[in-house]
């Protein structure tokens, strides 16, 4: 039953450098625009609004002027091997493909039981509480991309690692008579859009790819690693307090990476006010 991933050919993954991340939110907009994510007049109801890529703001909990904030851009983690959401879906509407590692969701198959949402600790899955907001005569449906089918009310959706871009890249390769893809031919919309180049995307199985190098960095970590979800989204940060935020630690359990990081972590702020 538990099918390991190792026999898989590719293992697409993402590395997000939180030192570079500026919290600008371009990844979120790029994602929404790329994937026809519904936008409603009131997007401030965060528990019900849909975002495949979501920006979490965190701070070190210190007082002014020592307070420091940072960001966690959170796509779907595309958990490997046995994602919590996949095995629970009663209608096989979501599956992990071991040749790419992509966890995909079929909206037309989904019956909207939301069991997967309950099973995912990352809140990477969101439910369509409404039909998409495209009033007649407003014309907003004119920017919809035909590469991603718009969702109907009552189904769950989530980050797809832009798998339509994988198919797009493959078609291009086929047209050029190639079967294999080169690095960078398939990257997600968020990775492409990031103005600070904080997001890299590629094949973790391919040692030549940037992501597989970065994912081995001493500063690399993943969110909630202890639960054994085995995400394919890695983060980089030289700041210990940021790394500590990514998982639950019993007292004394967290280990700072190195002196280098410790010094990089020390951020001096001049007293003011």
């Amino acid at each position, binding site marked *: 039953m538990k099918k390991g991933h190792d026999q898989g050919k590719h293992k697409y993954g993402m590395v997000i450098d939180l030192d570079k991340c500026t919290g600008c939110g371009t990844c979120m907009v790029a994602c929404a625009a790329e994937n026809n994510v519904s936008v409603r007049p009131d997007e401030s109801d965060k528990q019900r609004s849909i975002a495949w890529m979501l920006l979490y703001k965190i701070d070190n909990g210190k007082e002014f002027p020592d307070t420091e904030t940072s960001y966690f851009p959170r796509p779907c983690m595309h958990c490997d091997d046995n994602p919590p959401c996949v095995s629970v879906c*009663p209608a096989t509407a979501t599956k992990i493909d071991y040749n790419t590692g992509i966890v995909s969701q079929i909206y037309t198959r989904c*019956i909207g039981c*939301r069991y997967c*949402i309950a099973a995912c600790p990352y809140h990477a899955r969101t439910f369509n509480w409404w039909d998409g907001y495209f009033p007649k005569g407003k014309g907003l449906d004119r920017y919809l991309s035909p590469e991603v089918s718009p969702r109907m*009310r009552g189904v769950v959706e989530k980050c797809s690692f832009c798998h339509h871009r994988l198919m797009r890249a493959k078609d291009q390769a086929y047209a050029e008579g190639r079967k294999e893809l080169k690095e960078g031919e398939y990257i997600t919309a968020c990775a492409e859009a990031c103005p600070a180049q904080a997001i890299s995307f590629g094949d973790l199985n391919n040692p030549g790819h940037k992501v597989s190098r970065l994912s081995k960095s001493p500063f690399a970590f993943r969110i909630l690693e202890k639960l054994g979800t085995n995400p394919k989204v890695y983060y980089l940060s030289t700041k210990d307090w940021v790394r500590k935020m990514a998982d639950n630690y*019993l007292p004394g359990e967290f280990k700072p990476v190195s002196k280098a990081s410790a010094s990089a972590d020390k951020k001096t702020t001049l007293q003011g006010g």
Partner: protein
Amino acid sequence: MDSVLIPAGVKRCSLKLFLLWTLPWLGLLAWGALSAFLCLWKGLNQTNMTNYFAFAVWIVFDLSVIALGAGAFFTGFLTYIIGKKELKDIINIAVIIGFICYSGAVAMLGIDIGQPIRGWFIFWHANVHSMLTEVSFCITCYLVVLIIEYVPIILANRKLDEVPDFHLFGNNLHRIMAVFAATGVFLSFFHQGSLGGMYGVMYARPFAFREGFYVWPWTFFLFILSAIASGPSFLILCTKLVQGITRKKLVPEKAFQTLAKISGWLLASYMILKIADTLGWIYGVIPKAGMTFMDFFSEGPYGVWLLICEIIIFGIIPAVILLIPKARQHQGWLITGCLMNCTGIVLNRFVLTIVTLAIPVMPFDKFVSYLPTWQEWGISLALIGFGVLVVSLSYRYLPVFPKEAELNPVAE
């Protein structure tokens, strides 16, 4: 005027009074119908569920009624398979209550899913690894069984019984009831368990996750046990309630006592396992996730009191009450015990559903609260209205209680 339909040799109130009695319950049904319409027509934005509270009051209700409805299959099991004669006097009402609980639960689930029209995909595109698939399959099949068990009772209606075909069909069905009962038992064991499994398998939700045996987490077995522990109690409560309202003795006390005793023993054993399970969770699952016990009980209203209520107040105490013969023979204590027993189980289902979702797992995530809308309440309460109506109608027009005539001789 409906006297021709009323079973022979028993007394029923006037039709006018009866109709008056049904009004409030019809009211609940109407409220539910309106809510259901809104939810199906406009979608689940009519509820207060969110991406944080993907499951909410409906699921709590579902799990509860299914647990409480376990009285049906378990009594059936005791009656037809173990052969406890005295329970024959109460099996009919048990079946009816089971039918109410399960049909209600299935109806609610139908509204709860975002795409009801595609609901059958669960069967057609079944994912056999999902506990929910197992639940759906078993509940549906078991509902069929319950209907089969209900049919002879309906056919026993005086007017219907006059039709020879019906009469025969009813009889024959009744003869092989053991077969269906057995099937029902098998199905029920699985879906009761799978309901628990649903939570136990969520390995990325440390509050619910449990180790287990083969593919089944401990919650699988705990749910079966708690269901059959509370089912009989609920059956007792309902029957006592009917007796109270009709101011009649309908079932010999022996049946109640047998059920209460069994319920007590099962609850006690459930409690022992539950405590073991909780300890295992505290010292096994939680630290592995890097969390501490209090992380789960310091958010919002969800404090340790939940655990105390569930295990001690509504667990151990009712178990004790039901196990002491003196206590359970005393009507007051009997009812209190059963009531507490059922409360405990409902609380358990509530905690596993709501607290699991309410407590954030990511350290930088935040706690959000949830309150149901009137639509959610409407659909939940309609279940009660539906139940009361079905019982009332059955009681009025069907010979639900075989011993009724004998216990309440009508002066001709």
